[in-house]
Every structure is written in structure tokens, then in C-alpha cells.
């Protein structure tokens, strides 16, 4: 079902709402956020220069670096007292990216997620199991509130302990699964190993997947594991923008509908930073036009996609973004966690026993992401014993775990054995491309 009337407005109506909200938010950030005022002044833009939606292209971009530079609350337009929720996500340096919500922001967030869950087939009859990790990441609690708002019975099982997840699924009669697509496949496999046929013995009929992109191959595998009649959709968001709730697939499976009364989407050429015409592929740039605490304007998502403005067969008129086809930076998503190779590099450079060169190999085994880091041994004094070399591997592994929250396998290799690059180093090999 279509959750809100805002999803079926005419283009003129949508754009009218967008313009008035954009003008209001630009005025607000100019007044309240010194960092925005400085950027706008440098580009010679005043709030009343925004007379039409096409004037948005003259506004400065916001990047993840801006959030870091203004850590933790520097880009907020409200005082800390007005916040009712704070979340954070990992950053490339030690400092995470901090986001906050006022009471009204929580309402917007919940509404946006409810729309997307409804698009994916959710009703108040569903028993929803949320297998995203709870905590500082926005994914779990975002879906949690949105699904509760629809009236589904929400089970916050969080991630991990897969056998127990399956026990709950069976005993509670779970009908809806929230997870990263790779974890959903893993759960399905484990259920099979436990002697269940997920398609017959479990009642899961809706999958709302996110946290990482889902390839068409993964979707096909999902049908095979969970049943051909499963409603398999993915949704998109990032904590900087709101969390989940920016966009999601409807059951027509022809791209993700963007909640356009809350977010304005543009596509730019990531090199020239020029706005590209509708339908062309480039980097997605999103402006938050209704949020109170942290309304980022022209946020560089680094995700590559295209926008489709034609009305959808489902009845919604909101613009659709094509399923992601890569990123304009080198961010990796490993087990749903954002990982920048620079974070790993920073850890490695502080280990004196190894050289400066490294290689990261990301793969997927049994539907779980794996990461191997090859480093060159530089300190010959460790050759006394295997124990010393083992201790070194162990130490690097635990440092990586502290920074990223995920396990990597560390492989020591001989000095000068890793590839050297003359130009831009290509240190990351992602073997998951087009994989299940």
C-alpha cells in the first residue's frame, strides 16, 4: 500500500513543496551554522539567492570531512538540549561522524521508514525481526521505529547468534526480516544446515534489506533460499542524511523511490562537480530539507546511480534512483560496516615491525564478508620464533578490530613481495563484485 499522499503528488506539487522547504532550510543554516555561513559567503551566496530549485546548484557541497571538521555538533542548527537522540558512524580517522535528531526529526525519520516498509509490503499483521546490530548505527533503530509505527510486531533480535535468530523466527512465526542481504542469505543457509527448509518451515515472506547494496544475483539467491513468493526489496539511506528512510524499492522492483518531500536528489559528475541532466549516471547528492538538528545541504553520498522521474507502475510519482553501481570513493562495506582503506592504513603505519605497503582482499564465504590484509615483515628480530610472528599478527588484528569493529585475517608476507604502484596505488581487491 501507499503510506502517504506525498508519494503521489504531481511533479509541480512536489517541486513547490521542495522549493519552499529548501528556502527555509538555507535561511536557517545560514543564520545558525557558522561553518555554512562561511562557505556560502565565500561563494557569494545569500539565502535569498535561492529563488528556484535550479539555484540549488550554486550552493556549496557538504562532505563527510565537513562533519569531521565540526565534530561533534558543529553543523547542528539546534542546541544539544533539543536533541532526543544521538547516533554515530565510523569515520576515516579516530573520530566518528555524529548525527542528532530533535523530537520532530524522529517523527520525520519514523514516517520515512514507514513509507519504505509499506512499499516493501509491510502491514500491521507482520512480525518483524530486526537482525541489524543495535547500538550507535542508525540502521536497527530506524527500521525499529518505522515498523512499530506501521503496527508490526517488532522483535529487536540484533545481529549475530544465527541459530537463536532461527529459533525465534520459527517460534514467533516471524514474517518479515530486516538484515543486510548477505546476512539474510547466511541465516537461510544456517537454517538449512539445521534441517529446516526456510521456504516451507518458516513464515518469512518479506525481506527489507539494506546496509549494503543487493545485487540481482543476491536477490535471485534470496528467492531460492526463502521461497519464490518472498517480497525481496532493498532500501537506501545513510546516517548523515537520516539513516534508513531516504529511499526504497517498491514491489515493482524498478529502482528506489526517494522521499522527495524530505530530500532533494541531484546527480553530479564527481570530477567536475557539475549537475548532470536527468537520467545520466553520476554521484548522488542529497539535500535534507525538513530536518531540524542536522539538515545537510548537497551532501556528497559518493554513491553512483541515476535518477528516473517517470511515474512508477505502483502509483507513486516520486523519483526513483537506480540500484547502486559503485562509489566515487574507495569506501568498502564489509558485513554492513563502512570501511575506508585509509582507516586500515592508519593502523598499519603505526606498527613498526611491518613495511608501509599492504594489500586488502575482500571476499565472501558462505555469504559472509571476509577481509584479508597482507603486510610485509620488516623486523628481522621476530624471526627467532613463530610465537613472535604470531604475536605480531595477533596485535595487528586486534588493533583493526578496535578501529573497525570487524575481524580481518592478517597475512605476513616477505619484504618487497607486494606489488608496487607508480601512480595511484590499487591496494584493495574486492572479489565480491557480481557475487552472491
Amino acid at each position: 500500500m501507499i503510506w502517504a499522499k506525498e508519494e503521489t503528488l504531481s511533479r509541480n506539487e512536489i517541486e513547490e513543496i521542495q522549493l519552499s522547504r529548501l528556502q527555509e532550510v538555507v535561511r536557517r543554516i545560514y543564520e545558525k551554522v557558522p561553518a555554512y555561513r562561511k562557505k556560502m559567503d565565500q561563494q557569494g551566496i545569500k539565502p535569498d539567492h535561492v529563488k528556484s530549485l535550479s539555484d540549488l546548484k550554486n550552493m556549496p557541497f557538504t562532505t563527510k570531512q565537513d562533519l569531521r571538521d565540526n565534530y561533534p555538533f558543529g553543523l547542528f542548527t539546534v542546541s544539544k538540549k533539543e536533541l532526543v537522540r544521538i547516533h554515530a558512524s565510523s569515520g576515516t580517522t579516530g573520530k566518528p561522524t555524529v548525527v542528532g535528531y530533535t523530537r520532530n526529526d524522529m517523527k520525520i525519520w519514523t514516517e520515512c521508514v514507514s513509507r519504505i516498509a509499506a512499499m516493501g509490503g509491510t502491514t500491521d499483521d507482520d512480525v518483524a525481526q530486526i537482525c541489524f546490530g543495535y547500538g550507535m548505527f542508525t540502521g536497527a533503530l530506524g527500521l525499529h521505529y518505522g515498523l512499530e509505527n506501521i503496527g508490526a510486531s517488532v522483535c529487536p533480535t540484533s545481529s549475530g547468534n544465527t541459530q537463536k535468530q532461527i529459533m525465534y523466527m520459527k517460534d514467533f512465526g516471524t514474517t518479515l526480516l530486516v538484515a543486510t542481504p548477505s546476512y539474510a542469505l547466511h541465516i537461510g543457509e544456517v537454517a538449512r544446515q539445521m534441517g529446516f527448509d526456510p521456504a516451507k518451515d518458516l513464515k518469512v515472506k518479506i525481506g527489507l534489506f539494506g546496509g549494503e547494496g543487493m545485487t540481482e544475483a543476491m536477490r535471485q539467491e534470496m528467492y531460492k533460499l526463502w521461497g519464490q513468493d518472498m517480497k525481496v526489496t532493498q532500501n537506501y539511506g545513510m546516517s548523515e542524511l537520516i539513516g534508513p528512510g531516504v529511499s526504497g524499492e517498491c514491489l515493482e522492483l524498478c529502482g528506489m523511490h526517494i522521499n522527495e518531500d524530505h530530500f532533494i536528489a541531484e546527480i553530479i559528475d564527481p570530477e567536475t562537480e557539475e549537475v548532470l541532466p536527468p537520467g545520466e549516471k553520476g554521484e548522488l547528492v542529497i539535500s535534507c530539507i525538513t530536518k531540524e538538528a542536522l539538515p545537510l545541504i548537497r551532501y556528497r553520498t559518493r554513491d553512483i546511480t541515476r535518477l528516473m522521474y517517470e511515474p512508477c507502475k505502483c502509483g507513486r510519482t516520486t523519483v526513483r534512483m537506480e540500484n547502486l553501481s559503485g562509489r566515487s570513493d574507495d569506501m568498502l562495506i564489509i558485513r554492513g560496516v563502512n570501511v575506508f582503506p585509509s582507516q586500515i592504513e592508519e593502523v598499519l603505519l603505526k606498527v613498526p615491525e611491518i613495511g608501509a605497503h599492504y594489500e586488502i582482499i575482500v571476499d565472501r564465504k558462505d555469504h559472509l564478508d571476509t577481509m584479508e590484509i597482507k603486510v610485509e615483515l620488516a623486523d628481522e628480530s621476530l624471526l627467532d620464533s613463530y610465537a613472535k610472528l604470531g604475536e605480531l599478527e595477533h596485535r595487528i588484528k586486534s588493533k583493526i578490530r578496535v578501529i573497525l569493529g570487524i575481524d580481518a585475517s592478517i597475512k605476513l608476507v616477505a619484504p618487497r613481495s607486494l606489488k608496487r604502484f607508480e601512480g595511484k596505488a590499487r591496494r584493495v581487491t574486492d572479489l565480491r563484485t557480481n557475487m552472491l
Partner: protein
Amino acid sequence: MIKQLSVFVQNEVGSLAGVTSILKENNINLKAIASFDTPEFAILRIVVDQPDKAKILLAENGYAVKITEAVAVELEDVPGTLNGMLTVIAEANLGINYIYSIVIRHKKAPLIIVNTDNLEKTVTVLRENGYLVADQEDL
């Protein structure tokens, strides 16, 4: 004591031959070699007639190499000698990390190389019990 080279090698086809061919090309005589079954990488222990030259050459060829001292014990070819030596070490409360041997010596008895956490003490107790501990020149 004698000098032993510890070389880091990856478990790949030809990795040992890579080391030995560098030694051969430079007329360095390989006296003993030991490596163990490990999944990822190995520490190769070798004894050669010119350890310092071998270290430089291997390092130049991209190997991580370390020279360490090693205890080499001459063993007569009679039953029970190896057991006798190991008992002496055990009774001195020294744990053995690894052990290998030099078999090819011109008309001399083979040498057993033992590594413990305390090499000095190992030499002392072996000599006290009448064992012949070799020096680099004895090779």
C-alpha cells in the same frame, strides 16, 4: 656456538629453491636446512659456511633474514647418544624449541643443532656432561 640464519619464506612453490639458488650462485656451501609444516609462512633455518655473506645476499634479494647463534653438538654414532643429550638438556630444565642436524661433514660425526630459551646454559650443561659443542670453524 655456530651461526644460523633464520629466513622468512612464504609457503609457495619454489620458495625454498629461491633461497638455495641464491646461495649456490654465490658459492656458499649449505650445511643444513630445516623448515616445518606451517600453513601461511615458514621460518627457514639454515647453516652455511659463510653466514655474513649469505645474509647480505639474501637481504639484497628481498628476504627477511636474521643471524643468530646456535648450539651444535657433535654426536658419536652409538646407540642412545641423542637420548643422552636430550636428557641432559631436560634435566637442566631447558625446553627445546626446535632441533635439526648437519649430516654432511667430511669424515666427522654429524652435528645436532638444538635451540632452547637459554643457549649459554645449554652449552655449559652439555660441556659439563662431556659433549662436544662445535664452533663455526668446526663446520
